[in-house]
């Protein structure tokens, strides 16, 4: 059935859209193609002929790509486009972490560009500020840059941790290889979250001591949830990883 998968992949891989949307397209077209194949087999065709007939009935992959592309939303297209810019075949853990972190950064930059002038215009219209636009930009940068660096670093770090975490489980049973390894990664995540949050808010408030006294108890509670978050992440990703695997390993000669 690999030939059927390849036909579907030729149509879907060039589509610029987010991974979830593309996975849905792949599975649905493949499912259809399998039914067509069974139908062709039932008419007496041998397997090779049935595959050819089924692929022909589904249509030319390039034409299908264009039709599928037209259904992708702008948000999905944007996510897919960023993926495409920074994605490399057979990327490493670090490469994947860089990709996700840069994708995050690229997603928030336009948001800030839109939000800052909008806030200024609204505040000026309702007369709630005497600040100039430049003052507002400066204030936004003061908060925005440390927060952007912090959030991007979180995405990078937790992507690496997530990769390590996924390796702690045996496939396909998904039993942990080492309980110590799982807890160790959870502990590292907790410490990283605590330290980085403390650093961020100390910079923003300019008062590390007050930050510590005010926020540390809350952060400790929040950070203690990290093991549950990490375990939940693995369980939630499990299905998607299993579903994506047969597609990502396909060699498609005509990729654009």
């Amino acid at each position, binding site marked *: 059935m690999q030939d059927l998968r390849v036909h579907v992949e030729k149509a879907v891989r060039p589509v610029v859209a987010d991974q979830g949307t593309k996975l849905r397209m792949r599975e649905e077209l493949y499912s259809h193609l399998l039914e067509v194949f069974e139908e062709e087999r039932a008419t007496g065709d041998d397997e090779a002929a049935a595959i050819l007939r089924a692929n022909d009935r589904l*249509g030319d992959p390039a034409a299908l790509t264009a039709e599928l592309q037209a259904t992708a939303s702008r948000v999905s297209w944007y996510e897919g486009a960023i993926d495409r810019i920074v994605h490399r075949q057979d990327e490493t853990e670090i490469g994947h972490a860089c990709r996700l972190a840069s994708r995050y950064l690229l997603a928030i930059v336009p948001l800030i560009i839109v939000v800052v002038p909008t806030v200024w215009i609204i505040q000026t219209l309702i007369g709630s500020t005497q600040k100039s636009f430049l003052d507002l930009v400066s204030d936004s940068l003061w908060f925005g840059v440390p927060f952007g660096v912090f959030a991007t670093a979180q995405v990078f770090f937790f992507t690496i941790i997530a990769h390590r975490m996924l390796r702690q489980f045996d496939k396909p049973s998904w039993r942990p290889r080492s309980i110590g390894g799982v807890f160790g990664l959870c502990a590292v995540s907790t410490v990283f979250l605590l330290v980085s949050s403390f650093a961020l808010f100390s910079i923003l408030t300019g008062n590390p001591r007050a930050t510590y006294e005010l926020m540390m108890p809350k952060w400790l509670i929040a950070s203690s949830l990290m093991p549950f978050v990490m375990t939940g992440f693995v369980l939630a990703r499990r299905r998607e990883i299993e579903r994506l695997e047969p597609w990502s390993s396909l060699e498609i000669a005509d990729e654009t």
Partner: protein
Amino acid sequence: MSEPISGKSLHGHLDTMVLAVLDKSEAHGFEVWKRLEAQAKGGLKLKEGSLYPALYRLETAGLLTARKEEDDSSRRGPRRRIYKITRKGKRRLDQGRQEWQHFVSVVECVIGAPA
């Protein structure tokens, strides 16, 4: 018999046709295709892959909803998505039917009129 109607001529009508076949009951993509084929009595010449972009368009527009089918160990392949027409979809279908009737009657007046 006339040539089957191909993709280009169907442009703009496929979405309404999909809504029409889903008006009876919910169905997965392959079943939608079988219904289209059966109701057109071999009069459609369309690549089957084109059905899915139409389904996605309709879903995005809120005219269809989709859910994953229950696990079925008797068949191979991933779980299929079952499409169901929404109330908005039913209203759109009614509108599409009226527009089609109007279109046919106007064209009939011109093309079907005796020379």
